[in-house]
């Protein structure tokens, strides 16, 4: 059931993200992209399986690791979160610049100029 719930939730997040990207307000477009990248990260972690403990060795040397979740997807997602942060910041400054250049953040009007 967990998988079904996650699948539906991810589907909804992507749908809302797409809807936002289709708006003419640049800020909302940025939100949409952020929302979709969050959902993509969650998807990747889900792929690694949700059962098992944190992938950290128990207290020191030679210890058994036991059943842990997939460390590889976590490493990938960690990178993705940081890069997502960089691109969001960049997108926001671009938005600011669009406002400065065109005096509007309505994409329909920006194009008309």
């Amino acid at each position, binding site marked *: 059931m967990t998988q079904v719930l996650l699948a539906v*939730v991810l589907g909804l997040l992507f749908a809302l993200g797409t809807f936002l990207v289709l708006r003419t307000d640049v800020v909302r477009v940025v939100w949409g992209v952020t929302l979709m990248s969050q959902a993509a990260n969650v998807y990747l972690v889900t792929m690694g399986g949700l059962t098992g*403990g944190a992938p950290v060795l128990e207290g020191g040397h030679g210890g058994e690791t036991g059943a842990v979740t997939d460390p590889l997807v976590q490493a990938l997602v960690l990178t993705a979160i940081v890069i997502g942060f960089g691109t969001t910041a960049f997108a926001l*400054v671009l938005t600011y610049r669009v406002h400065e250049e065109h005096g509007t953040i309505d994409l329909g009007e920006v194009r008309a100029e």
Partner: protein
Amino acid sequence: MQPSRTALLALLVVPFLGAGLTPLVYRVLGERTAYYAAAVAAVCLGLVGSLYGTTGTVVVPWIPSYGVSLALYVDGLALLVGTLASGVGVLVFAYSGGYMHGEPGQAKYYATLLAFMGSMLGVAFAADLIALFVFWELTSVSSFLLIGHYQDADASLYAARKSMLVTVSGGLFMLVGFLVLHDAAGAALGEATFRLAGEGSMLANADAMVAELRTRGLLVPVLALVGLGAATKSAQVPFHIWLPNAMEAPTPVSAFLHSATMVKAGVYLVGRFRPLLFTDEWLVLFAALGLATMTVTAILAVAASDIKELLAYSTASHLGLIVAGFGLSGVLGAETGAFHILNHALFKAALFLVAGIVAHEAGTRAIDDLGGLYRDLPVTAAVTVVAALGMAGLPPFNGFYSKELLFHAAWEVATEAVAGGGSPLWWLIPAVAVFGSVFTFLYSIRFLMLFFGEKPEALGEVHSPPVAMTAPAALLGALALAVGLGGVTATAGVHLAPVEAFVGSVVDGTVVAAGDHGGHGNFSYHLPTKVTPYLLMSALTVGVGAAAYPSFDRIRDGVRAVRAVDPLRPNWYYDGTVHGLDRSAAIDIVQTGQLRTYVVALSLVTAALTLGAYAAAGTGLPALVAAGLEPALVVVLLVAVVGAVAVGAAPSHIAGVLTLSIVGFMVAIFYILASAPDLALTQLVVETLVLVIFLLVLDKLPAFYGSIPRLRALRDGLVALAVGATVTVTVLLSTAATPEDVIAAYFVENAPVPAEHGPVFVDAGGGGNIVNVILVDFRAFDTLGEISVVAMAALSVVTLVAMRERGEVR
């Protein structure tokens, strides 16, 4: 002797490094950057000189997993093209110092020219098809930039686009040909390689390659594909149309790229592939292509009204002669091509520099307005006499010898074919060669007559040119004269050894190893000492040309009348196609410039392809397992969805940002539940930062929210639903199917530190966290990439904000 690895690599690095430094140098030196660029070219010329006499391959691994390496190969042909690129480069840069005085965009001009020179050297020395292709396209790109140097002139932009479209699309055909060759090499050589020259290469196993291609029925397609690349680059009929337009570039560029070097890349390719692919099909294809080009463009040159247009058509015509030479069989064919590359570069680069001087000093390039220039430009006139008569093919000037070789080769091929029972159509080859040469003679003399006869009244005062402009032209003229006189002294027994040995080594590189008879490297040329059929062909050319010259104007008008018929003009087809594509209604539907159009198209296509692929593969949804719902997870995910809905429905930007961070924090809690503590920590930090940045930026933005018409909301909702459904199905399918052998298992199994290392690794080194160890050790390069992305984003942010504050609006 093996070439020096250092010298070869330096040869490729120096021009590009020089190009990169040009903007800085320009700030210091200003217009004298020309001499800096000339110095860089001189260094390259020196490096090429140091390679003289060596043969062999130098390999630098590039993409080892695909067998792609930067292999460089030195032989006579490569050295010839390399010498032209760097040698003519020195002269053109020096000449630019005078010509470009007061022109705009000089830093860009010199940087591009230097980058071009580097690319051309790369084309000459590449021994690997991929490297050859990359450098080949780089020359096209730099040519595009240089032709469009005057960015405000529509004619420049038109010409730049045209040359780009023609040469780059030809290059793509060539790439397909290379891939076919690569594939064929897999069967013929035992391993699929891109190596063109050197040990274990295609050239070293030419017979096996041709046999393999023939059995697959791919020989003619490969010839056609490689031929298309060469024909577009070297302006062969019907792709010659871009070359006359390319004359919009500054004259030094025309002299350098569009006569001496870049257009030679095509004939270089033909020469390089000649030993590999020479067959009867090759002979027919390239001899026909070359002779057709030589004749058609020579006729068009007669109709030219502008001196640079005349020279452009003439360049295409002489390139046709070289291609025809390489197309014909035997050592003679190779000698024609090799020797004419050198001769043409000498006389044509000189003539272009002359044209630049005339345009600069007389103020016009119109042929009808010019005349009697020798009084004002005596040195230039002398250079023109040598170069134009060489172009006409008159003895004892340099063009005569290579043209005589063409006649000889054409005659031999025709007599051999007819004697072997071939059809009399073979006689067309020598006949067309003579016919085309008559027109060459006509326009050469016309160009020469700019300097003699009466000076038209309308032509004002003609200034004398600066030494920086006359000296390079005079030097090229002197070299052309020396090559020509070498033939005269050779008749008396004194050979011009360096030139003969050099051309001989070029011939070695283009001659077919097995099929060609005759000695290698024994090239020599001299005036004919007895009457032969081919000497009579030369005499016929000159005789008919001289007889026809008095009625030059009538011939020209006749050609112009024929040229005006639209369906006969390749330009008519080019303009029609480009204009048709440019103005078609489809563009307005596909390219609206609106983000939403592209997002809708992209989303729907991706969704359709994904779902279609599942359906095609017959994948069924996995069975539902009705157990194991963790209450905490349900709550967190539901809150996230509610947050996301609130983002979509947010009445203000502030409300939206706040609800967006609710989603973010819920995702962080999800990571905790999913046993990913590192992700949760990172997510919390990032989410906080993003919230702060959002608020900082929103403070500066207007409160625009945009109303959504109902119809549009419905349409967007449907697109969003399609995307959501695709994601749901994908998640269900992919989480249900976990592969047997996951990479992560390796890390988990090997994570525990062996007992003999003691606790220090984990306790002091923090090696207990598998995710951290993966990030900093095993995938450290990914982390480096991640840091670079953040750094670049930060730099871009600073630039975007600071540039505006400094007042740079665009």
